[in-house]
C-alpha cells in the first residue's frame, strides 16, 4: 500500500493499470471505460424538468438514449472519488483556478480562466456526444478494440487540440 501514498507513478505502470482495468470492466460489466455518456443522459433528465425550453421530448423520440442512473454514471462518479482519495493520500491536492501556462497567455484573471474553461468544456462535450466518445471512450477504449470510428476520432482530436493550443499558448514560454 506504500505506493498509494506516493504522488506520481510511472506512466507505463499507470497505462498498464488502465489497460488491465479495461479487461476488468469488459469481464464484469461488458462495458468499455468511458465518461461522457452519463453527461448526455443527465442532460436529458435535467431537460425533463423544463421540457419546452430543453426540447428534450423531440430528442427522446429520435434517440435511443434515455435518462439513466447506471454503471456508466457510477463509473464517472467513481473517477472523481478515486482521484480525491488518491490526491488526499499523497498530499497532491490543488485548489488553484488559473494554471501557469494559461496565465502567461491570458493573464491572471480568474473570471477569464473560468469563461475559457466553461466554453471549452461545453465545446468538448458537444463534440464528444456527436462522436459518441471522448479521450477515454474513443481514445483508449475504442482504439484498443480497433474500432474504425475511434481511429478516425483520435488523430483528428489530437491534431486539432495540438494546433489550437499552439495558437493559444505556443508563444507563452514555459
Amino acid at each position: 500500500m506504500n505506493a498509494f501514498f506516493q504522488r506520481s507513478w510511472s506512466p507505463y505502470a499507470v497505462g498498464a493499470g488502465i489497460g488491465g482495468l479495461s479487461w476488468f470492466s469488459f469481464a464484469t460489466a461488458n462495458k468499455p471505460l468511458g465518461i461522457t455518456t452519463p453527461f448526455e443522459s443527465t442532460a436529458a433528465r435535467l431537460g425533463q424538468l423544463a421540457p419546452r425550453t430543453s426540447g428534450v421530448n423531440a430528442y427522446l423520440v429520435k434517440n435511443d438514449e434515455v435518462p439513466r442512473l447506471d454503471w456508466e454514471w457510477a463509473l464517472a462518479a467513481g473517477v472523481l472519488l478515486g482521484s480525491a482519495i488518491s490526491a488526499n493520500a499523497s498530499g497532491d491536492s490543488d485548489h488553484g483556478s488559473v494554471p501557469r501556462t494559461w496565465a502567461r497567455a491570458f493573464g491572471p484573471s480568474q473570471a477569464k480562466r473560468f469563461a475559457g474553461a466553461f466554453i471549452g468544456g461545453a465545446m468538448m462535450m458537444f463534440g464528444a456526444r456527436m462522436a459518441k466518445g471522448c479521450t477515454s471512450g474513443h481514445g483508449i477504449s475504442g482504439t484498443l478494440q480497433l474500432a474504425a470510428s475511434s481511429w478516425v476520432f483520435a488523430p483528428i482530436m489530437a491534431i486539432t487540440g495540438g494546433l489550437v493550443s499552439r495558437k493559444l499558448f505556443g508563444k507563452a514560454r514555459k
Partner: protein
Amino acid sequence: MIVDSPFKLVLGLGTGAMFGALLQKGQVGKYEVILDQLLLREGRVLRTMGTAIAVGSVGVHALARAGYTQLQIKPLRLGSVIPGAALFGTGLALLGYCPGTTLTAIGEGRRDATVGALGMLTGALLYVRAYPTLKPALEAGDFGKVTLPQATRTSPWPWVAALGAAVLAGTLAFRER
C-alpha cells in the same frame, strides 16, 4: 429513468474509483501535463494512453474470443465523428482537461475543472436541444459499427501484435529523460 441494480452501481463506482486513482497517480489530471502533451513539449499522456491501449487490446480481444465479453464498437459516421473530434480537440485546448481528467482534477480540488464540468453539462444540454435538427447531418456517411480487422477482412491478432510492437518501439525510441 432506468436505474441499474445496486450491485452494478457499486461495481461501476469501484471501477471508476480505480480509474480515477490511476489517472491521479499518473499525473494526467494536471493542466500543465496535458498542455505539455498538446504542445509536444513532453509525452506523459501519450505514454500512458499508448501503454493502456496496447495492454488493454490483448486482454479485451482474448476475453471476447473466449466468449466472456463482446466488443462494444461505436459506429463510424463521418458526419458526426469528424466534426465531433475537431470540436472536441478545440474545447480540450481551451479547457486543458479532457472529460475523464476533468473529473480527476475536480477530485484534486481544481476549481477551473469544476467550472469546466459545468460547461460540459451545458454542452450536453445544448446537444440534446440541437439533436433533432442535427440528426440527418450526424448520420451522414454511416459505415456502421465496424472494426479495422472487419473492414480489411483480417484477423484482429496481427493488429493487436502491431499495436504492442508500435508502443514498445515508441517507448524505446523516446525513453524518459
